[in-house]
């Protein structure tokens, strides 16, 4: 078929001379995940907008919740040395602190989960990698939220 006198394959080009000809063009290297006429598929939803808004709003609330939490736990009234079973039991006796901690748990977990979701979307290059990383992330998030919520609601100060 080929009329060129090129030697057997495996020998590279010499001094920049092309191994390709008009009839045998160089392979075209496609960019990964390139935008085409068919992609991205439109989804028609507001999920990304609500996600974006949630990050801003939960961030503002978390600043108050977390700094308050750190002050109470680590700085005020004797600092970290006072924290013990009795201290936690005393705090969770009040619905105010239960709600505080519950809110902090949910907001921090969802805020972190959504943040990591965008990081995975931005950095994971292959669709499969994305799928697995996000699956792992969602599992860990749901598990932590459920466990934390369970502890806050079923905490028994008289446990032996």
């Amino acid at each position, binding site marked *: 078929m080929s009329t060129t006198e090129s030697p057997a394959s495996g020998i590279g*080009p010499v001094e*920049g*001379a*092309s*191994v*390709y000809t008009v009839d045998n*063009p*160089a*392979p*075209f*290297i*496609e*960019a*990964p*995940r*390139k*935008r*085409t*006429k068919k*992609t*991205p598929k*439109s*989804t*028609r*939803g*507001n*999920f*990304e*907008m609500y*996600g*974006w*808004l949630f990050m801003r709003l939960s961030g503002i609330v978390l600043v108050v919740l977390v700094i308050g939490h750190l002050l109470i736990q680590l700085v005020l009234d004797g600092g970290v040395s006072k924290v013990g079973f009795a201290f936690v039991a005393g705090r969770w006796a009040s619905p105010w602190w239960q709600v505080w901690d519950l809110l902090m748990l949910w907001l921090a977990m969802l805020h972190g989960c959504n943040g990591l979701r*965008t990081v995975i*979307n*931005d*950095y994971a*290059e292959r669709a499969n990698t994305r799928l697995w990383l996000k699956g792992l992330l969602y599992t860990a998030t749901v598990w932590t939220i459920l466990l934390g919520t369970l502890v806050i609601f079923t905490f028994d100060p008289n446990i032996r």
Partner: protein
Amino acid sequence: MATPVLDKADAAGQPEPGFADSPYITVTFRVRRFNPEVSAESVWEDFQLEIDPKERVLDALHKIKWDLDGTLTFRRSCAHGICGSDAMRINGKNRLACKTLIKDINPEKPITVEAIKGLTVLKDLVVDMEPFFQAYRDVMPFLITKDTNEPTRERLQSAEDRARFDDTTKCILCAACTSSCPVFWNDGQYFGPAAIVNAHRFIFDSRDEAGEQRLEILNDKDGVWRCRTTFNCTDACPRGIEVTKAIAEVKRALITRRF
């Protein structure tokens, strides 16, 4: 009334290495070469030039192509910062080669010139712009009105209404912003700053009636919400468009539309 006679040596403007007043300096241009017909890898190639530092990088590229190596491949059309053909990464920053003076980018060190990132390199400094223009087409960058009849007179607009989107009319589609965006580098599905800027130009145009449609397009998974406000696009824009601000305005319009 004799016409003044210019000194021939001056008029020719040739480099005179021994001459103290010569404006010419020696500059090294380190160009990232790529030829898929020779190798799948790109290589840096150095070119030493005697050139006036008040000339532009594009002049240096012309000198290389015309005098040293005719195989150097790059795009340029108007060569005066309007057509947007010669956006490239010069010393690691996206610029137009025709608007960048050599003296402004430290000619003492080798000046690196490479293709813009995030788009497939076809040869040397030429990239495949198709995904970029596909995103541009996807935002419908043209006037849409509901009345099907031909207008009988000019569509009038107040100066304030015109000023609302003045900044984003300046876009020349050079792709300097989109190819400086880290989100676009990693995922070409993102619309990219340039498409959003051109959507902004019509969304905020009082004469246009498809703003809602364009907002809906940009509300999607790969729309404005993927912007991480890194401001690379604003820094890269050779026309000085406040790109990140335009994206933020589209975000705000999307939120105020709902609430």
